[in-house]
């Protein structure tokens, strides 16, 4: 409240008018004479450019959207940010009991709980981003149909806001490492790189699904199943080296999550070597995922306001 005691009274309206400055009209007119239009609106067809420059110009809005996502997601919950830690923990314990204890899946010589939690860290960042941005455009229908801004910002904002979840899980990975006495190695420095690959893949999938769900609400129902299948075809509860024959590993890596999850475990646990062909296929697939999603999004976004 003290901030506002210094405010001038409401009757200070004239001063607000001064803020717009009187000489402006002539200034505007001078600039406008014989100049090129500031903005041309024309119907567009086919594929559109990505327009990265415009995205950059709107970076302030992106950060504010990211902030909003973070603030809103666990509002009015008793545990608040605690959920970010609790969800993967419960998931990891469940998986460790079922697949580690009961099914006794091999875990590359490390405790199964740590093994699975490592994979989950990468996986959950991917799946949470995909899931939250899936319905993001539809949830922001009011915005999309009323105001212009690069629509990509909406799914993109989730790529960034989910980083909070990732950070919390990463801290938990370090705690697990300490508990299980796994010595940290220099390979930990590669984590940002694998995070980037995850973010690219997740954003690509997010672009595809959020754009599709504007027209087909089916995506809301299809995505959870899709992710569930994706979870099992990714080496989270098992290791690629022990469960997939070497002949098929490169083909297996067409799923970019293979390289990502293996890469995370490689840098955290410091055990088995990373298969280079898996790594490069993953890099290529992440780039393809991101670019295909972005171009598809740009192609269909012009109709969003009409069909949302």
């Amino acid at each position: 409240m003290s901030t506002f005691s210094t405010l001038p009274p409401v009757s200070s309206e004239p001063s607000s008018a001064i803020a717009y400055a009187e000489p402006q009209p002539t200034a505007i007119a001078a600039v406008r004479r014989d100049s090129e239009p500031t903005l041309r609106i024309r119907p567009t067809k086919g594929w559109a450019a990505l327009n990265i420059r415009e995205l950059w110009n709107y970076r302030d809005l992106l950060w504010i959207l990211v902030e909003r996502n973070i603030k809103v997601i666990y509002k009015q919950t008793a545990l608040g940010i605690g959920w970010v830690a609790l969800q993967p923990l419960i998931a990891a314990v469940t998986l460790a009991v079922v697949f580690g204890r009961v099914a006794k899946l091999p875990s590359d010589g490390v405790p199964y709980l740590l093994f699975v939690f490592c994979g989950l860290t990468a996986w959950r960042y991917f799946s949470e981003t995909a899931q939250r941005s899936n319905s993001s455009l539809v949830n922001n229908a009011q915005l999309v149909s009323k105001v212009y801004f690069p629509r990509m910002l909406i799914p993109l904002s989730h790529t960034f806001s989910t980083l909070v979840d990732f950070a919390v899980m990463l801290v938990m990975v370090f705690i697990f490492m300490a508990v299980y006495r796994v010595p940290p190695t220099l390979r930990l420095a590669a984590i940002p790189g694998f995070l980037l690959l995850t973010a690219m893949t997740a954003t690509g999938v997010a672009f595809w699904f959020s754009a599709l769900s504007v027209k087909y609400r089916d995506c809301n129902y299809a995505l959870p199943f899709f992710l569930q299948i994706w979870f099992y075809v990714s080496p989270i509860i098992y290791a690629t080296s022990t469960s997939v024959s070497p002949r098929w590993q490169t083909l297996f890596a067409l799923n970019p999550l293979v390289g990502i999850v293996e890469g995370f475990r490689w840098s955290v646990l410091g055990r088995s070597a990373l298969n280079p062909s898996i790594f490069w296929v993953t890099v290529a697939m992440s780039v393809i995922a991101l670019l295909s999603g972005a171009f598809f999004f740009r192609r269909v976004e012009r109709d969003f306001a009409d069909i949302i």
Partner: protein
Amino acid sequence: MSQVALSIQNLSKSFRIAHQREGLPGYKTLHDELMTLPRRLITRFGRNERSTSEIFWALKDVSFDVKAGEALGIIGSNGAGKSTLLKILNRITEPTTGAVDIYGRAGALLEVGTGFHPELTGRENVFLNGAILGMKRAEIRRKFDEIVAFAEVEKFLDMPVKRYSSGMYVRLAFAVAAHLDPEILLIDEVLAVGDAEFQKKCLEKMETVATKEGRTVIFVSHDIDAICRLCSRCILLRHGEVAKTGKTADVVAAYLGGAQDQAPEINFATIESQASFRFAGLYNPKGQASTFFGTDEPLLLKSSFAVRRQIEGLQLSFSVFNFKGDQIFYSSISMAQPAISVEGAGEHYIAAVIPGRFLLPGNYSISLALHTPKTKLYDLREHALSFRIVGTVTDRYDGFAGDELGQIYADVKWRRTDERQPQPSPGGGVSTLASASR
């Protein structure tokens, strides 16, 4: 100053309306697409689907220029294409054909509160909303105090806006939008909210922007009063086309009065309702259908409507509006002497007479309604008919044809008084009243 701020050339926008036999129109599910895929492949990717979809032109070949510093109003009835036009100018949707060139930074003041998040506090929402409307963070920070002062919500800044009263919410939203700083301002129907005092404040703010600061303003509204106050020039859209351009008063008259080119009789398309209008018409005392009436001529309003099943308490009513859309009066069949019942099933034919020497010259419109008092509206035909009252020699109206003189033809008794005015007595009524109220 004749620079062009905005130039629109042959702008058109079409929508494909799908006629679906079942399900929600507009939404396609993947299942639908898959089921119709074979057929669409056969018919060359759905291009021959004429039987199930049709093209609707929301805008057709619209062209006009807006000069820098001009305040232009865009009016038209619902579905005339106003919103579509504004959406194209705002880049929310793309035109089908045509071009728009905008010279200068354009900003939009759309429905207030767009992008407000109920869970966030007032302070957070100011930043969110400002950024959505295209402001930079630093810019919002600079104007923050001003925005908050304008909205008068200082005390509630750190409260989630879901706990705001609707008045506070709207005030804050408008305050953010009003502090946008574009050279070209696009405004859509923002004044339909808030209490009367705040509406006045908003209008004043917009007047400042439009007239004193010399900005270019494009104002789309149903609020004819606001249009008249803010805009010097207007464009009337009808069925997606520019029907009239010119001075605000003329265009507004064409829109609401519209007597010149509107038929005196209308057959209504039936609607899905238990009671619906069939027909309405206006007739002069000679029994001819007409839209022109002398000041002394009574207006005969005839209407017919169908009632499917007996509706208890059903009433027919109509309202008359002036050229600005202000309601002049209302009348309902319940006022009829002797009483007339229209409750029974079947077709009813009802006539009403609006007496002569009741309305001053000007343009008027009539809305018709079928309803049960305060419970249910069966059919409403807004501004279904319009007519013009013209001054006649016989009633000695002085011939001034403006709408500005009011609407009521008061039966004023004029006389010459030779005597001096009677003086109020010293201990008269006024002081007695004053003492009584104390």
